[in-house]
């Protein structure tokens, strides 16, 4: 229909990336845990948009369905079922905060250095053609990755039974 130029696509990528990063910082810094959850929604939704821009349309929709629509709801329920966390003093000791920030900064600096200084293969400088991904994902999922696919079912089964055992109130 409409063919936006590449600059437009790049611009929206950086916009959504910036929103996602701002949301992530909000998750970490928000004083109330419920606000953290709302910032998480922001991050997850804008990441769905970046996935789409990176050529993963199916994954973007899956991100909305699973992360925004399901995992966030689970987290919100968790927050509401543990009401006193609203009053929890959030700042842990100064030493611990400093150490945490230091570790995070170290990870960031190291990975940034690796990303920027690495000699990436020349073939990696151009993206693969933009095309719908659902069918390719389906083909992969039911042929090459059939075993991980079934393992995912077992993982979900174990998670479901385990979580029911843990969370259920004994009468």
């Amino acid at each position, binding site marked *: 229909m409409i063919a936006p130029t590449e*600059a437009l696509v790049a611009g929206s990528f950086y916009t959504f990336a910036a929103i996602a990063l701002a949301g992530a910082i909000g998750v970490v810094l928000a004083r109330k845990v419920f606000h953290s959850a*709302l910032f998480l929604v922001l991050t997850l939704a804008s990441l769905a948009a970046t996935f789409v821009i990176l050529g993963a349309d199916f994954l973007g929709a*899956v991100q909305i*369905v699973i992360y925004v629509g*399901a995992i966030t*709801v689970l987290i*919100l329920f968790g927050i509401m079922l543990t009401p006193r966390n609203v009053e929890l003093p959030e700042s842990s000791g100064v030493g611990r905060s400093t150490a945490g920030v230091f570790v995070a900064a170290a990870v960031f600096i190291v990975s940034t250095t690796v990303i920027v200084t690495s000699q990436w293969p020349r073939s990696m400088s151009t993206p693969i053609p933009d095309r719908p991904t659902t069918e390719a994902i389906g083909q992969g999922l039911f042929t090459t990755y059939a075993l991980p696919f079934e393992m995912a079912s077992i993982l979900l089964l174990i998670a479901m039974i385990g979580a029911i055992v843990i969370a259920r109130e004994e009468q």
Partner: protein
Amino acid sequence: MNCPTDNFICNPFLYFHLAANAIFRDHLPEPLGTIIVLALTVAMVTTLIALIVMSQVWAERRIVGFMQGRLGPNRVGPAGLLQSVADAVKLLLKEIIIPTQADKIPFMLAPLLVLVPSLVVWSIIPWGPGLSVTDLNIGVLFVLGLGGIPTIGILTAGWASSNKYALLGGMRAAAQLIAYEIPLVIVVLVPVLLAGTMSLGGIVEAQSNLWFLFFLPVGPVAFLLFLVAGIAEVNRSPFDLPEAESEIVAGFHTEYSGMPFALFFLAEYANSFAVSAMTTTLFLGGWGGPILPPFIWFFLKTYAVFFVLVWIRGTLPRLRYDQLMRTAWKVALPLALVTLGVAAIELSLIRSLLG
């Protein structure tokens, strides 16, 4: 009927498009012109839907009034037609009360979280061949993703109100929405399976010979499940427990007044209309039909489904909460899985028989 988008009868927006393109795209540098035309198109569709939704509030009140042997709104304007406008103006002029303990930003954010997805959906629902703002190749999944976002809005409304009734109402509403989302998601797979695509336009085209409603034996079951789960998803009677006034005041929007309340109200009707349109698209052949232009068929079918929703509201009593949850988890979910399984086996058999 065969209907190209450059035909005036088939595309009611043709002149709008031509005019918008002539004014903006021909005179402005490229990305800008396209963006402005796109913004105008989306704004027009959104406004149109909002107007339709407002007219439907009136229609629903009149129909329910008729079913219950009373008149319904009949004072403002001819046959009460301007009642919705009067209501909107009234709500606009009402004070927005924000309770002292309320968490203000999430409190105001919640109605938007419920309203926005119900309007965005209309950008991908096709009104005719090629007649949607955009046709996503993952359309169905995207609609389902949008359908999950109001749950967050309702939980936010309940939590931000700092009110026991609102909180309990919000949690009950959210538990109901997620309970019915699972059968909905699974039963939507039946049309996807039959059409072999997730694009809404593709699904409509796959029904050009046979509506999926009539794909026996699973079609009718899937259709009914979708309709029931859809009604539950938009909190309509008989599944309007979240706002069961006799039990938990007004549920999650107890503390809302004026315009924020109106937004919840608008969202509820916009969602009902969206569910009608999705039912039409997925099971009733969408815009397909003889003689009349496609978009007329689309709206005829959508209004017919909406009338059924109103009829159900006028007829059935509200469910009890435990009945509601039992229906979702112990009846609808297994039934949806069985329907999908039967559809898959049937399709395999047909394929192997036809070679």
